[in-house]
Every structure is written in C-alpha cells, then in structure tokens.
C-alpha cells in the first residue's frame, strides 16, 4: 500500500513515497537520506533515534511515519546553521569531548535541544533526568552533562549580550 506523503523536516517539506508499515526512522534514513538519526534498539528503549516532533523528543524507531506527517520534525541535521557553523550545543559537545563512539550523540543532542528550549537554565539533576532515556555506553555521562550545562550557559550569555 504505497502512498505519497509530505514530511516537514527541519523546516523544509519533503515529498516521498512511503508505506504505512515504515517507521519514521526508516523514512528519515532510507528515503530522505538524513542518516544522522540512528536506529539501535528499535524498541524505544535507548534514545539513539530521538528526533523532535512539534518540539518534543520522540523515538522515531517506534513511531509510524504515517503518524508523523502532521508534525514538525527536527533532526540533528537541522541543528547547525545553514553555512555549517555548529550550534552552541554541538560546539559544547565537541569542546567537552562528550562523544566517544558517537552513536548516541544525535539522540542526546536532540533531547538536550528540546530541554534547553523548555528550560534554558537547567540544573545538573534536571539535565540527568531529561537525558535519562538516552543511553550512552562509552562516556559515563559526566561529559555529556557538562556539555549541556556549558551550552546552557553560553546560550544565556549570548542572549544577554
């Protein structure tokens, strides 16, 4: 049962042919070639596939693509500025060495992005709570939390300036 569908991803409309049994992660990666979003546990447990739907983090691996057509989707590809300059959050991840193998990073960034929009001055505890659904097997999380805290400070400073 093929169907034509339009997805709004990172502010741009994409028309593509999908089938109802495709997940959003499948469509993003295999149809739209936005391979930043990762497929890992495919059960909603690990957070590697996190994208934002209407600004809220969701697991794209257990979301049917057909159900995501009405939403504004944001993926990790949308974080950097059009010229390629990293966002403050990405920059803080680089500076803090918050990635080792990098498989969880796209999901971490998206969850953190949603949190910083909602709560621009989170405490460390709040950061830990919000990324509790994103599993990282390399870093031990300390550097990831450091990076998100630093990004929050930098965003605040830039807005104050």
């Amino acid at each position, binding site marked *: 049962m093929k169907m034509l569908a339009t997805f709004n991803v990172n502010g741009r409309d994409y028309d593509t042919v999908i089938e*109802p049994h495709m997940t959003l992660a499948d469509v993003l990666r295999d149809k739209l070639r936005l391979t930043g979003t990762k497929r890992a*546990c*495919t059960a909603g447990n690990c957070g590697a596939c996190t994208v934002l739907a209407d600004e809220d*983090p*969701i*697991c794209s691996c*257990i979301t049917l693509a057909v159900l995501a057509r009405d939403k504004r989707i944001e993926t990790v590809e949308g974080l950097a500025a059009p010229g390629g300059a990293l966002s403050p959050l990405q920059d803080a991840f680089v500076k803090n060495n918050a990635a080792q193998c990098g498989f969880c990073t796209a999901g971490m960034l998206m969850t953190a992005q949603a949190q910083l929009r909602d709560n621009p001055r989170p405490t460390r505890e709040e950061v830990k709570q919000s990324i*509790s*659904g994103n599993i990282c097997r390399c870093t031990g999380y300390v550097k990831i939390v450091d990076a998100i805290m630093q990004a929050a400070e930098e965003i605040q400073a830039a807005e104050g300036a």
Partner: protein
Amino acid sequence: MGRVLLPFAYHEPKTVAEAMELAKRDAGTYIMGGCTLVPSLRRRQRRDKCLISLARVEGLDDFGIHPKSGLRIGAKVVASALLPNIWAGKRFAALHEACEQLYPPHIGNMGSVVGNLCSAVPYFDLPTAALALDGEMHVTGPDGDRVIALEEFYVAKFQTALKPGEIVTHLFCQPYKPDTGSSFKKIYRSRRTIEDLHKINAAAMVTLDEERDRIIDARVVLGSWGHRPNRYRAAEAALIGNAPNFDLFVAAAEAVTAELLPATDMDWVEKTRFAQARVLLRDTIAQAASRAKSRHDPFEDATEMLEDAR
C-alpha cells in the same frame, strides 16, 4: 529485534462513526501513538492486517482536570500533557506521578493515556494509578455508548472488556472527596531472573474525616503482580476507621502481601519481591495519607466562600 514490520493496510478516518465502520469492514485494530502496538508487531507477537489510526478522528481530544468536575482525558491525549497541569498534580497525584515516571521520558510524548490503559499489559503503570482513582472508561461502539469501570475493564492478560469495534472516547475519574490524597510509586527493575516480573507498582487513595484524624475511605492497588492490577479490600478494610499512622500502614501492606501468590518457585526471589511489595505499599499509603492531611488549596477555599456568599 531490528526486524522490519510486516505490511498492513492503514486507514485514517475523520469521525468515530467512520472508524467503527472501517473496524467492522476490515477487522481493523485501532492505533494511537503505537507505543504498545509497534513493538509487538515488530516482535511478531501480533500480526494485525489492518490498522485504523485514531489520530485524525475528531472529538477525542477532551482534556479537563478540575477539583469540582473531575478528570477527563480523551483518547488522543498523551501522558506528558498531564505534567504541567496543576490540578493533575494536586488532585490526581497518583496518575500524575505515574505519567511523570514513565521511562524513558520520551514515551510520555508519544503514548496516549487511554492507549496505555487499553494495552492491558500487566506491568504498565497507568492502570494501577487510574484504578486507585476509581477510573472509568467511556466507550462508544456499534451497539451504543457504555461506561466500564476499570475494575471490570481487565478480563485477562492483554485483554480488555472492549468488544470488537468499540472505541474508548475518554477516561473519567470522579472529583476527589474533601481531604483526600493519592499516591503512586514503583520499583523499577527488581528483575532477578527471566521468570521474575520486571517491577512492582502500587497506588493508593486515602480519605480522612473532617477533623482529619481518621481514615474514612481508602483504595489500595498493587500492579505488576498477576495478570492485572488489583484492589486489595482486606487492606482497605484495615485502614478504614483508624487513625493514620505508621503501624497502620505496615499492617495494611501486610494485609496485601498475605493475599499474594508467589510468581516463581525460587525462595530468595520471592522473599525479595514480597519485601519490596511491603515497603512499596506501606510508603504509598503513607504518602497518600499525608497528602490527605496536608491538603490545602486556597483556590478551592475561595470558590467555596463565593458559593456560600451566593
């Protein structure tokens, strides 16, 4: 896992009548967020041939929570919608806490409250919490509308009292009686062996008398034990009529565990699980009672004063 889903037919009706018509014609299954359905399709635990999305059906997005009118949550409302609501937190604390503790947190943005209740998965949290709040499911179906109390809603593992084609339009919980508090707690992953259930969850609602020194009504619910969450009347009876105190809560928790059957034949596993259940129940009841005691809502006093003045 990692397996792809098998193809299925898919419909997106706009009205409840249309959805029921399609469900009858194609023997379809309703889908909301898909958080229960998609993983079970992927694991081949289910092989539905036709899914009917409720996402675009009009009239299923009721959302009202107020101390005077109770709690009304439409089929399309996701769990995280309850989190910023002050009355959900104050008055329907058990359900609010269950939504808050969904793990991972992303699930709250995707899964609906009603979908969680309709999944009839024995270890889900929202059924335990909603049962303690005396929730009822408002259902519309080919044979008309009906209301099913959550107590009667769960008939077997993964099976609800819904007849084919019936749609739950919303969950409703009565407004609290005065001086009532509720609470929900879970111990996540007390899993020791493959036979062991992952976790235990408990919810309680306690109502105090006008002087707030005796319990006049109580609900005690334990979930993840057996095929469905259950109310434990013996524990409720032990609470009612007595002054809320620590020993009473311990006694009530023991009244629950006295009725429980072991789930495995491994002695040490059962010892741990029973001990966990006792502590969890004791603390859940204690918290509900303390909320009933300390409840004070300036807003509510103000509306009562206004009504008196009229």
